[in-house]
């Protein structure tokens, strides 16, 4: 597949901002039929108004209809698709080529984003917040640390994706080799694993607060339980186990003895 060379151009600032803001609602109509397809069309729409003839043109309606179909991507990386597809439409790339590009792009944007954000960045930020709690930080400070850290990455990813997608057009696949996307999960995962060992005992210790003996018992119970869950809990979500265990404990505690 030979991609046409995109001319050096960028989106006007007003349109860029409109698309960027719409990206925060890209999953607004998420459903099992088209996933985020409708959201992609919704986000691209301001750029499509730049097509010759504007909103009254056939190219505008055809493009909008094309992009409202099935599409899947991680929401934070959807900007890459929105930028690249908008660029392709504005460059007059043939619809068949755009369709093939859409099909090829969705999978990688989903898996790369899931690994980097949901399985690495989010747990790391949670653990930082839990560690801050364990060290005795106040509620406002903990919230500020968590939201500040997490959203620094979040907002950057959305902006980078949109800018890179539009700049590179159909050649955007190369950008998925960006070091942050490729090696980020490994480095973030290492940091998170180290931090987990610190944050969980400290957070547990602060919650228990009733004395070191009980905190120690809780930690030992947690380590044994955690090891068992890690070994045998592959098929059951941990929170469901917690729900059942807790229900049994509550029942035990309210039955007169």
């Amino acid at each position, binding site marked *: 597949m030979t991609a046409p060379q995109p001319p050096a151009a960028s989106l006007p600032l007003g349109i860029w901002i409109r698309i960027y803001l719409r990206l925060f609602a890209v999953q607004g*109509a998420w459903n099992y039929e088209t996933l985020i397809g409708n959201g992609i069309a919704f986000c691209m729409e301001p750029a499509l108004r730049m097509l010759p003839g504007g909103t009254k043109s056939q190219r505008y309606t055809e493009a909008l209809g094309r992009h409202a179909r099935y599409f899947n991507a991680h929401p934070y990386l959807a900007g890459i698709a929105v930028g690249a597809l908008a660029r392709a439409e504005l460059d007059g790339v043939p619809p068949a080529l755009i369709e093939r590009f859409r099909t090829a792009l969705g999978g990688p944007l989903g898996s790369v984003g899931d690994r980097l954000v949901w399985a690495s960045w989010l747990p790391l930020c949670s653990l930082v917040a839990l560690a801050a709690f364990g060290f005795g930080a106040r509620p406002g400070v903990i919230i500020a640390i968590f939201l500040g850290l997490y959203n620094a990455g979040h907002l950057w990813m959305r902006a980078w994706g949109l800018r890179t997608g539009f700049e590179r057009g159909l050649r955007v696949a190369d950008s998925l080799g960006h070091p942050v996307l490729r090696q980020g999960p490994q480095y973030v995962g290492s940091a998170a694993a180290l931090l987990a060992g610190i944050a969980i005992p400290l957070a547990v210790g602060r919650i228990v607060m009733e004395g070191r003996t009980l905190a120690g018992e809780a930690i030992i119970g947690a380590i044994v339980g955690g090891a068992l869950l890690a070994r045998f809990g592959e098929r059951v979500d941990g929170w469901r186990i917690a729900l059942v265990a807790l229900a049994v404990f509550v029942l035990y505690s309210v039955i007169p003895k």
Partner: protein
Amino acid sequence: MTATLLLDLFPIALLGALLGMDVVTFPQAMISRPIVAATVAGSFMGNPGGGMIMGVVLELLALGMLPFGASRYPEWGSASVVGGATYAVHAANLPGALAVSLLAALVTALVSGWSMVKLRRLNAAHATRRRDDLEAGSPSAVIGNQLFGLTADLVRGGLVTFLALLLFRPVVDLLLARWTTDAAYSRGVVVAIVAAVSAGAIWKIFHTVNHARLYLLAGLATGAAILIIR
């Protein structure tokens, strides 16, 4: 009495609606994470510290639930509001408050997760009804679908939070009045359960990272040392 109760619940339900939306539809800034949502709910009830305790407990449980695309997962935003608000009200000197409030939050998370599946089907049905307009590239159909989904999610989160608070308020009071287990052990058991789940989750998420075992052990040693020194 009824009007007062509804007025009491309305601000918290609104908070649950907004934070419930954040999970998937808008803006996914993770203000719906338990450590944020439960603390804010606790602040609404005048006890941010209590809300934060519930937030930390729920955050430990939520660590293992990764919100991958079409997978089914608990909805922590509204659930954290319910848990945070409930615990913030009952936290002072009630031995079973943490356990019972957490149970309320987890049941809410279960129901709220189910409601998200229903919402996604509703969105699909709505999009199907407008398929011809979408195929024709109607901007009003595209924007209409988006607004429908966002509004429905806002209503969903609000309803789940409101009904959960309405239901759990008397149930929590009843359970706490009959609670017999010692306060320290009540809290210890809850913490051990959630810490075990979070430790298992951390291992499941990061065991593929190079030298994960080493990092975890180094972290644990550091954490234990800090606990002992303090």
